[in-house]
């Protein structure tokens, strides 16, 4: 074997090594976060951590249900506000906007995706929180789910919009032609033909948006108030639920990790394990939907 053949082999294995680095990193992340959390799981008990509603490290109470509820509530709020906007934006870009308008809106969506989350957080702190504070409900501080949901909705908009747009564009051109030839209007074509055909891609986009929302940290710390309580309505009006302060799983970690030692630190890693698990499930389901779509396409 000549020298360059050996070099060829060596390079192959170096490249192979870098290819499996990703596997090593994922395993290492799982391993280290779980290893650090073992103390909390074994000493406090899984049920105590997952279903405990009281987070009080000072008196050794480490229930993270309030944070799970906080994360889910703020994600729900963001989806409620962000998804219609994102889908509308995707339909607009893919089917309606003339090329000139697309050339403005698409870079705008891209830029929205690139803006650092702290800038959104700052914007929320300076503009949204004082605005929301004007809603006259006792105990309303402005910080809370509403401000966080609005900020988050803007942050997940680009993710959902761009994936949904791709999904809509991927619908074969002859679907459109067929529908229009049958006398359907453009809007009927969009709602009855294109959206159903691109459904799974759109759903996957929304799910990935959920993943992004669950994972956002700094902007949440800045506007949500960080109270470790179950979000609850501030008055008899159930809508004031969104004025409640809350804390997300991510915020719980970021805000306290630097202050924590011993079992407290371990409980924060346990929070990380829960977040990690949640995200893996969410992203895997998005991937699963995209994959089944591909099979269907192939079958067709």
């Amino acid at each position, binding site marked *: 074997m000549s020298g360059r053949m050996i070099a060829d082999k060596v390079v192959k294995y170096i*490249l192979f090594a870098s290819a499996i680095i990703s596997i090593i990193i994922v395993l290492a992340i799982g391993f280290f976060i779980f290893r650090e959390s073992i103390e909390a799981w074994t000493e406090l008990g899984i049920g105590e951590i997952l279903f405990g509603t009281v987070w009080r490290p000072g008196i050794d109470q480490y229930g993270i249900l309030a944070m799970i509820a906080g994360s889910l509530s703020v994600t729900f709020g963001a989806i409620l506000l962000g998804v219609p906007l994102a889908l509308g934006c995707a339909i607009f*870009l893919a089917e309606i906007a003339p090329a000139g308008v697309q050339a403005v*809106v698409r870079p705008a969506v891209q830029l929205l995706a690139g803006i650092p989350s702290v800038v959104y957080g700052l914007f929320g702190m300076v503009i949204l929180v004082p605005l929301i504070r004007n809603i006259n409900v006792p105990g309303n501080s402005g910080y809370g789910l509403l401000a966080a949901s609005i900020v988050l909705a803007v942050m997940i908009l680009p993710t959902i919009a761009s994936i949904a747009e791709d999904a809509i564009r991927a619908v074969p051109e002859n679907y459109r032609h067929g529908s229009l030839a049958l006398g359907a*209007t453009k809007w009927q074509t969009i709602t009855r033909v294109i959206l159903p055909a691109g459904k799974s891609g759109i759903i996957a986009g929304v799910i990935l948006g959920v993943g992004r929302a669950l*994972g956002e940290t700094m902007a949440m710390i800045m506007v949500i108030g960080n109270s470790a309580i179950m979000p609850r309505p501030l008055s008899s009006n159930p809508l004031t639920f969104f004025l409640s302060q809350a804390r997300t799983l991510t915020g719980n970690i970021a805000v306290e990790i630097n202050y924590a030692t011993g079992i407290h630190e371990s409980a924060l890693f346990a929070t990380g394990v829960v*977040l990690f698990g949640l995200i893996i499930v969410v992203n895997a389901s998005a991937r699963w939907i995209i994959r089944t779509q591909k099979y269907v396409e192939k079958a067709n």
Partner: protein
Amino acid sequence: MDERSSEIALIHKAQALNLKKEQRRQSFWVALMWLFGLITVSILILVVGYVLLKGGTAINWEFLTTPPKGGLSGEGGISTTIGTTFYLVGLTLLIATPLGVGAAMFLIEYAGEQSLGSKFLRSMISVANFAVETLAGIPSIIFGLFGYALFVSTLKFGFSLLSAALAGACLVLPTIIRTTEEALLAVPNDYRRGSLALGATKWQTLYRVVLPASTPGIITGIILSVGRVISETAIFFVTLGGSYRMPTSIMDSGRTLALHLYYLAMDTRAFDKAMGTGAVLVVMIILINLLIDFVSRKLTAGVRRVR
């Protein structure tokens, strides 16, 4: 006949009515979609415009060239945080780029290889693909937690640029792998066949032919990653320490622009300076987006020429 034609006329009339209704419905929804597009653009203009306008007044030469000072009172400028940002970006990419490009080359160029044979390697490749997708979805605070547990505590790198860059590399790795993969896929197979036919080995083919042809795509990935590191806060919040002195070695603590913005907004009342820092960040991100646009245009132009 008359009866028949009047019937047809009626049907036509009904159809026309129906059509009108549908058209009215259509114009309503289309208008709504326009509105949504408009809202998206206005959100951007609102956020970017507000930050640039408010922050613009805080930005001057002195702000950009003096270091922060006075503890948490928010005095001084942002010079060292700009320096630290670039330092950290460089370090992160120095770690992530070779790994990411190498991984992508293996996943694309070797995955289809017949001689690869072994079932083990094949399954490793599909696991690696799965791992890259998983990495891409992991929230940054998890990378931060991981970096804190492994680099800061276990390996005792402390709160340092090294810890932060290693954790940051995990964040940008999937971006670099995916964009490089796309760039490699865009290189026509004829290139590879031609080079191999001339007697070049696989690696020679890769680095003399395939890699140069895919450079713009790889650069796009790198620029994207630069943007992600500049914007990232959560990872560095728990691994970088936050000292605002200019780091002189990779074992030093530091504070990036985004982190400085967080501290200014949360810890001081210097909202004007926070806005100024935000404006600098936003301008950087806009420049990066323009750069990506420029490079990818070059890329498509190159591909067109090839065809």
